[in-house]
């Protein structure tokens, strides 16, 4: 099998003109950073950053039983989601393993059933295939809309002020985890108050043919507010500081949402399909295990030294391996290395002193509660 060619977003030429360092991410050629990733990170914390996230995978579900299909196919209670609202949820396999984490938006009118599922780029095909496989018997259509959208995010405390310059939509009235269709810079957009940075911010789903114009309009509107283009490198450190999981690191098919500390996303009290949903029995067992005898817990680690832990590094207590790092990076906000790790429950309490094996040397780390950073 030959590898498919790397895909380019509608903003590819824009990134190159900005001098971006590009990287392959889940088969997409994406900006890693434009200049200093640390400065991009700090700009999002203090002002605003502009991201191209067009690699994310959009799947639209419509039809009279769209909500019921999602209740069955996902772990959340999506039929109860109000129009204009969004929810963080997961799709699991029959044994409860996480296939992906998702944001689901309910769109359209009150009397309609229209949902948009946003999947991680690397998992979008898996999610699409699973939804199609699970749609039998439901009056619902599953549509691959990956090519229909470019996704531009503007994130940071100045994001709302910047967006307001480009739309007559009531930006201040849009709640966190809500999204509605309107115009941005004169172009149709789904304006969502969501993000992956730990800051206030917006994600704008627009047509690929409008992406450059919307990006440039945001750049102009954000000039006074120190808006800077931001790559995936700082997106990763921003989400890590915010304690947000990343599929392939904190989440995988070998873990259930309960193992990942995200059991709250699993709703057993569903009113549709007689409460049945894919993975239910396995997830009920996982919930019980997590409540009584969790094998490992996801924790935060903060360094005392300056060497940076990376995914896969062993976490040690008294020389014995008690866990594994899933993500690690130098934290621009804290000024020291941080990590997320799965560690045995006995060593998971905040304040516990552990070590991370960094290329043969045991570096001291302390367990802290997640997130590392919470906006004030």
């Amino acid at each position, binding site marked *: 099998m030959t590898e498919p060619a790397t895909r380019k977003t509608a903003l590819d030429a824009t990134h190159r003109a900005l001098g971006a*360092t590009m990287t392959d991410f889940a088969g997409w050629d994406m900006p*890693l*950073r434009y200049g*200093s*990733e*640390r400065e991009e990170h700090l700009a999002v914390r203090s002002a605003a950053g502009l991201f191209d996230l067009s690699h994310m995978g959009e799947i639209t579900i419509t039809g009279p039983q769209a909500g019921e299909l999602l209740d069955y196919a996902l772990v959340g209670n999506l039929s109860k989601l109000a129009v204009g609202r969004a929810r963080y949820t997961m799709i699991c396999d029959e044994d409860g393993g996480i296939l992906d984490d998702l944001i689901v938006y309910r769109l359209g009118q009150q009397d309609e059933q229209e949902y948009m599922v946003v999947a991680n780029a690397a998992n979008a095909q898996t999610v699409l295939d699973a939804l199609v496989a699970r749609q039998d018997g439901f009056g619902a259509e599953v549509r691959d809309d990956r090519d229909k959208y470019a996704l531009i995010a503007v994130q940071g405390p100045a994001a709302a002020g910047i967006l307001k310059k480009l739309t007559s939509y009531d930006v201040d009235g849009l709640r966190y985890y809500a999204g509605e269709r309107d115009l941005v810079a004169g172009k149709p957009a789904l304006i969502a108050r969501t993000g992956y940075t730990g800051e206030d911010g917006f994600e704008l789903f627009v047509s690929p043919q409008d992406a450059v114009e919307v990006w440039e309009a945001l750049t102009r509107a954000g000039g006074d507010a120190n808006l800077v283009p931001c790559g995936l*490198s700082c997106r990763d*450190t921003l989400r890590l500081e915010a304690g947000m999981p990343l599929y392939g690191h904190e989440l995988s098919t070998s873990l259930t949402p309960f193992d990942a500390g995200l059991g709250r996303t699993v709703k057993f009290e569903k009113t549709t399909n007689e409460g049945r949903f894919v993975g239910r029995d396995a997830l009920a067992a996982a919930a019980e295990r997590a409540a009584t005898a969790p094998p490992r817990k996801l924790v935060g680690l903060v360094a005392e030294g*300056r*060497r*940076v832990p*990376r995914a896969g590094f062993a976490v040690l207590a008294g020389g014995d391996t008690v866990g594994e790092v899933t993500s690690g*990076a*130098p934290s621009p906000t804290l000024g020291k*290395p941080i990590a997320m790790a799965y560690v045995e429950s006995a060593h998971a309490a905040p304040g516990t002193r552990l070590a991370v094996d960094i*290329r043969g040397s045991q570096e001291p780390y302390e367990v802290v509660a997640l997130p590392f950073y919470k906006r004030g």
Partner: protein
Amino acid sequence: MSNPEQLRYSKEHEWLSDAEDGVATVGITEHAANALGDVVFVQLPEVGDTVTAGETCGELESTKSVSDLYSPASGEVTQINQDVVDDPALVNSAPFEGGWLFKVKVTEVPDDLLTADEYAAFASGS
């Protein structure tokens, strides 16, 4: 970017100055610094250590990765740049100047080090 003409370059992206009184300065190139991204931690050899051309003598940690530091020449380390230990961002902001890494009393310089032009051609192809 321009690589200073007076320096010599290794294929591991280190630069080496001409020796003065037998002591040469070592750093990493701007190309390497850009490829690494923001450097957040440098581990250098200690003064008095013997380093060997082409062998690792430290590491550079950036947001995304860690890279070994290779010595471009053999000899004894006479000084390390404490400024860069305290502020590793100097590697990014001034790789050929304030971001130098260590000085070495040279006993051997490999004869396959590159000139600035040769290195530029090598780096653009890597």
